[in-house]
């Protein structure tokens, strides 16, 4: 893992991963959407609106995943000072923020017909909103310094401090029995029918590979950016 800290090595590995990620994305989003929107059955209670789940759940998962990557990379940046770690964290932030926004918006669209209200202040919704604010705060504080190094370190500390929110989001549906649906994973297995697990699984893979594609493009750009800056400084 520490070998990845070398930017050139990272570029090489990224070049190898990128086509695979694109192929996985194409081959998961197309059958995923097909299954989700057409083939999979409508829910016996919710009817056709259950199909929002196939967007809502993967984007929620990706919002959490991006923040976890951001926190881990920020930690490794603070400990070992790898510039790559900071670049990955900075790249993850806007992607994760948009996934979280997508999750909240799709949830609102789903809540209006299902619950009768687009928003309720239960634990999971509130902690996801706090996650969105943490993303925005991370981006804001990273850009608020004249000296970019100070900005990097400040945002890294904020990412670590905010990571206490992640277990709160994950376990909020277990700790508080309020409006949001509890987790489908339990000791007895997955409490979702297999005809719905397949499109959900495919959509999660699609979103995940999309995240990798965007992340690699962004980090590549940042590395090339820093190389250009180094060359122009030498001139």
């Amino acid at each position, binding site marked *: 893992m520490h070998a990845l800290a070398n930017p050139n090595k990272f570029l090489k590995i990224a070049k190898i991963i990128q086509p695979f990620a694109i192929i996985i994305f194409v081959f998961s989003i197309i059958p995923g959407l097909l299954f989700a929107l057409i083939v999979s059955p409508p829910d016996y209670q919710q009817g056709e609106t259950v199909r929002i789940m196939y967007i809502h759940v993967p984007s929620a998962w990706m919002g959490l995943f991006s923040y976890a990557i951001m926190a881990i990379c920020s930690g490794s940046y*603070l400990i070992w000072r790898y510039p790559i770690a900071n670049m990955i964290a900075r790249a993850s932030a806007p992607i994760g923020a948009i996934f979280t926004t997508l999750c909240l918006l799709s949830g609102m669209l789903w809540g209006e017909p299902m619950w009768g209200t687009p928003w309720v202040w239960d634990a999971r919704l*509130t902690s996801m909103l*706090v996650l969105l*604010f*943490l993303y*925005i*705060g991370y981006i*804001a*504080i990273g850009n*608020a*310094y*004249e*000296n970019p*190094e*100070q*900005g990097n*370190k*400040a945002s890294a*500390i*904020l990412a*670590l*401090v*905010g990571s*206490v929110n992640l277990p*709160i989001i994950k376990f909020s549906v277990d700790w508080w029995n309020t409006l949001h649906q509890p987790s489908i994973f339990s000791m007895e297995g997955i409490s979702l029918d297999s005809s719905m697990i397949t499109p959900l699984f495919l959509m999660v893979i699609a979103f995940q590979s999309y995240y990798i594609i965007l992340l690699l493009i962004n980090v590549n750009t940042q590395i090339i950016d820093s190389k250009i800056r180094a060359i122009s400084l030498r001139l």
Partner: protein
Amino acid sequence: MNAILTIINRDLRISFLHRADSLLVAGFFVITVMLFPFGIGPEPGLLERVGAGIIWVTALLATLLSLNHLFSEDERDGTLELLLTSPVEIYSIVIAKTLSHWLTSGLPLIILSPLLVAALQMPSNTILPMIIGLLLGTPTLSMIGIVGSTLTLNARLRGILMPLIILPLYIPILIFGVGCVDVESMNFSSDRLYMVLLGFLIISFTLCPWAASTALKMSFE
């Protein structure tokens, strides 16, 4: 320990010298809460139902106000650099600053809260949960505030950036603090909610001084 007491002593003396600052923050607290009866209107029962939320949110905002000048004064006249280059550990400095901040901003809020509970016509059995909730909650607010304050020490637009970072982290304390008062006003025991607030206090006392001292070190590299 000696160093912590010395720093607290110094900070308290400076705050007493500029006691207008702390009084202003306390005054802001009182005046803003007093605005709400005018804004909400004379409908009976409405004010006492939202009263806990009003007092807590205004306490949060007042704490934010007092955080603004927490380190910036010291940084401007070079005291912070002297402190950081002295043999005192930065961790101790942060703890001392947090304690002195709580003593000058949290404690006045706690003392003034019964007055405001009466002003918002809330039932008298909510005074004690309000005091205990603020007593358990305001140190946590100070500690999270110190993290935000040190993180944004040299940042542009510090006045806007700091609330943006700190307020999402304040939300859980706000929720449970208001919960204490509301639960007691319905004649149930809010002991469990006090435990949660105490838990937040312990977690933040463990994690926040570390984060703030790292941020201080980073701002002076």
